[in-house]
């Protein structure tokens, strides 16, 4: 099995105070912690488990800054064999379709059986890059996969639908699978492994090295424009529901139902 696993270095903003600059063009990330995207972490584990079962190699692929190499080394410590990090300021990182094009540029021309990636990035939540990548590569795919079985020339993928229902599909190899969290139990990257991973190859490339034309993946190539970023009105401060117990319950029930929360 020749596997690529695409991972992303993302901030954990679940508990962070997020501030947007006055121009509405950028978010201050100086106080965030960064790590591998949660779903990608499961994709790394799945790729290593498949390799351990069927032999082969796993190549980590990531578009990101130098700081993200710590995450890449951790993936290699877990068993991935080598890595390619793409860094090029011209890439329009806000557009998942263009990220898919860059990733495809890094994979095209090489043989592969599987490309795994997380089904969603925690920062922009698009859930688009993996499926777009399959289209770019011209291969089959399945999204939100919670269980994988490798068969002869194809893969049986268990897609997790809303409400816990599984949709089982068979897709021909090579294929792209976007991995849902919970598919496995990601292992720890011990320091011993991280030290050993320093010996593994980590190539750093730009668009020119990949033969991807900047004009195909920069902001001018995007079909969308991010006009502004702003904080939604209600952020984290709790709305206290007042009244007699019965009224409180009634108000809350109405909020939950109207907000589509239940």
């Amino acid at each position: 099995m020749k596997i690529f696993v695409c991972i992303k270095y993302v901030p954990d903003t679940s508990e962070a105070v997020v501030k947007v600059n006055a121009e509405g063009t950028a978010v201050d990330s100086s106080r965030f912690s960064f790590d591998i995207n949660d779903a990608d972490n499961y994709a790394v584990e799945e790729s290593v488990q498949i390799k351990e079962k069927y032999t082969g190699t796993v190549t980590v692929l990531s578009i990101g800054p130098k700081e993200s190499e710590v995450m890449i080394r951790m993936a290699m410590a877990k068993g991935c064999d080598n890595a390619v990090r793409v860094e090029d300021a011209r890439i329009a990182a806000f557009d998942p379709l263009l990220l898919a094009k860059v990733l495809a540029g890094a994979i095209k021309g090489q043989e592969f059986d599987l490309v795994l990636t997380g089904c969603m990035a925690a920062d922009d939540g698009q859930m688009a890059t993996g499926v777009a990548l399959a289209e770019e590569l011209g291969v089959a795919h399945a999204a939100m996969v919670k269980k994988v079985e490798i068969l002869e020339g194809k893969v049986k993928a268990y897609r997790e639908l809303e409400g816990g229902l599984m949709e089982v599909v068979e897709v021909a190899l090579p294929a792209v699978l976007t991995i849902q969290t919970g598919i496995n139990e990601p292992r720890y990257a011990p320091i011993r492994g991280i030290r050993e991973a320093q010996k593994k190859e980590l190539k750093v490339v730009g668009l020119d090295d990949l033969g991807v034309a900047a004009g195909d993946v920069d902001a001018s190539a995007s079909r969308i424009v991010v006009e502004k970023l702003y904080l939604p009105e209600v952020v984290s401060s709790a709305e206290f529901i007042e009244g007699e117990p019965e009224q409180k319950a009634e108000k809350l029930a109405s909020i939950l139902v109207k907000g589509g929360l239940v």
Partner: protein
Amino acid sequence: MGNVFVLAEHRQGALRDITFEMLRVAPNVAKELGGEVNVLLLGYNAEAMAERIAGYGVKVLVVDDPLFENFNADKYQQALSKLIDTCKPSLVMVGQTAQGVDMAPALAVEKNLPFVSDIIGLTVEDGTLKATRQIYSGKVNAQIAFKPADTYLVTVRESAFEAPDASVAGLVEKIDSPIKEDLDYRKFVEYIEAEVGDVDITQSEILVGIGRGLKEEKNLPVVQELAKAIKADLCGSRAAVDAGWLPHDRQVGTSGKAVKPKLYLALGISGAFQHIAGIKGAKTVVAINKDPEAPIFAVAHYAIVDDLFKIAPKLAEKLKELKG
């Protein structure tokens, strides 16, 4: 300009709510873009579903063919690709669902469509289509403009819009299947229902979390009733697990599990740092606690300061009423 296509979503013979939720925004956008709303239903034996959608005053284009008995992302993509060529819709709307995300991005690449996923708002300003979506776990909104194109594609977040009420009867128009053959590279095999009694709380959509405030095991039915009313799974703080009210695998926190439900309803949980660390993935947190100083309120979106035993039964009752 052409019409707005809304892709109906169905599963195991039933329409999913997202189909109707998209009808909250589709008519306005269609009007602005100078077209009308067409709901595209790809299914088999789909008459009843088609009639139900038509009841919302829209035209339903139905492909009724065994090829579409079950969802298949690639067949859907092929069908939509062909229909975009022939019908030239100005906008295609798809749910940001397990079906939608499996298909829409590939369609966008194939047809080179301007695409925005997971939108929570959609407007037309001075002829420019604009979408709102969220980034950074919902903490920042992004307003995104589409560059001019013949056809745009969006996926719409579930529950972002409230479905309108059914109105006048619209039309149902049967169209020929745009695809004629089954695919060899992707096949639907089967559906497998979630195993009952084997709950993985890390995957639960709705969780009712209980803490020390429950006081005694004999009070469990109060929260179980509420959980049942909203199809939630029960989980709890270390105290609740320690007390033996819940099994170990239901413990949330740094020494238990990290959960990421759409809704976390914290009942009688004070919110120790170690518990809160486990619910940071929750989209909406509702806290009910009689202690106004309880730290759980700092991370809650909705809060009630009161005795959970006064609130929970009433809440269950009201929710049952509202949900019908």
